[in-house]
């Protein structure tokens, strides 16, 4: 079932690193990839994108594809310039604090449940 980013943050304990004001966005599904062209080809609006990439190009990809949010895994540190760019482009960046497998698994369970 579709959930808002706010609901997901609350239930799954994500930290919001950028785009706090846009966390009312709805999420219907997710996509996991560290290959940017793969995300450019396959991600759809209303999906969250789970990745371990943290360089500035993730912001451009997320903005162009209009994904609901980027979920960065494993407590990866993100450069303040990247976060500032995300704020400017209206991109939400969340940190899951978990590896990609757990991040995707828990999110999948949430989006599948009623």
């Amino acid at each position, binding site marked *: 079932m579709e959930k808002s980013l706010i609901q997901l943050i609350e239930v799954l304990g994500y930290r919001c690193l950028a785009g706090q004001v846009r966390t009312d966005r709805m999420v219907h599904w997710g996509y996991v990839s560290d290959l*940017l062209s793969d995300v*450019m*080809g396959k991600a759809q609006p209303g999906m969250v994108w789970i990745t371990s*990439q943290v360089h*500035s*190009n993730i912001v*451009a*990809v997320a903005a*162009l*594809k209009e994904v609901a949010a980027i979920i960065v895994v494993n407590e990866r540190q993100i450069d303040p310039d990247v976060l500032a760019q995300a704020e400017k482009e209206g991109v939400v960046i969340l940190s899951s604090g978990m590896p990609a497998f757990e991040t995707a698994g828990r999110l999948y369970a949430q989006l599948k449940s009623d």
Partner: protein
Amino acid sequence: MKMQYHIEGGNFSAAGRASSEVKKTLKQFNISPVVVRRIAVALYEAEVNVVAHAWRGTMSVELTPEDIHVVVEDEGPGIEDIDKAMEEGYSTASEAVRQMGFGAGMGLPNIRKNCDEMHLSSTPGRGTRIEIKVYFNAF
């Protein structure tokens, strides 16, 4: 309406700037969001190709009420084998570029999937030219 953007080879922090500008412009017009996203994907991939492979390039955009016509031209090493470059999974990107998540060999196939017409030509040692056309009203 015509626009032109400069693309700097090797500057990954600026990659996507030209495509984002074009997308913002398109959003001001009454064009289907699906079509706008297709164009954005095609242009981003073409722009990243210049950043990842060439020394410098330009993106020239011509916008009419019916379609968008884009030419991305670069000075760079060119493409030795265009058929091979069009294959999914084939890439000549450097290890450093791959580490960033580029160079998956999906750029040109993504462009082809997201535009209505595409022409790619290249002179090895000189550069590459890609021409992309997308019609606003699918027919």
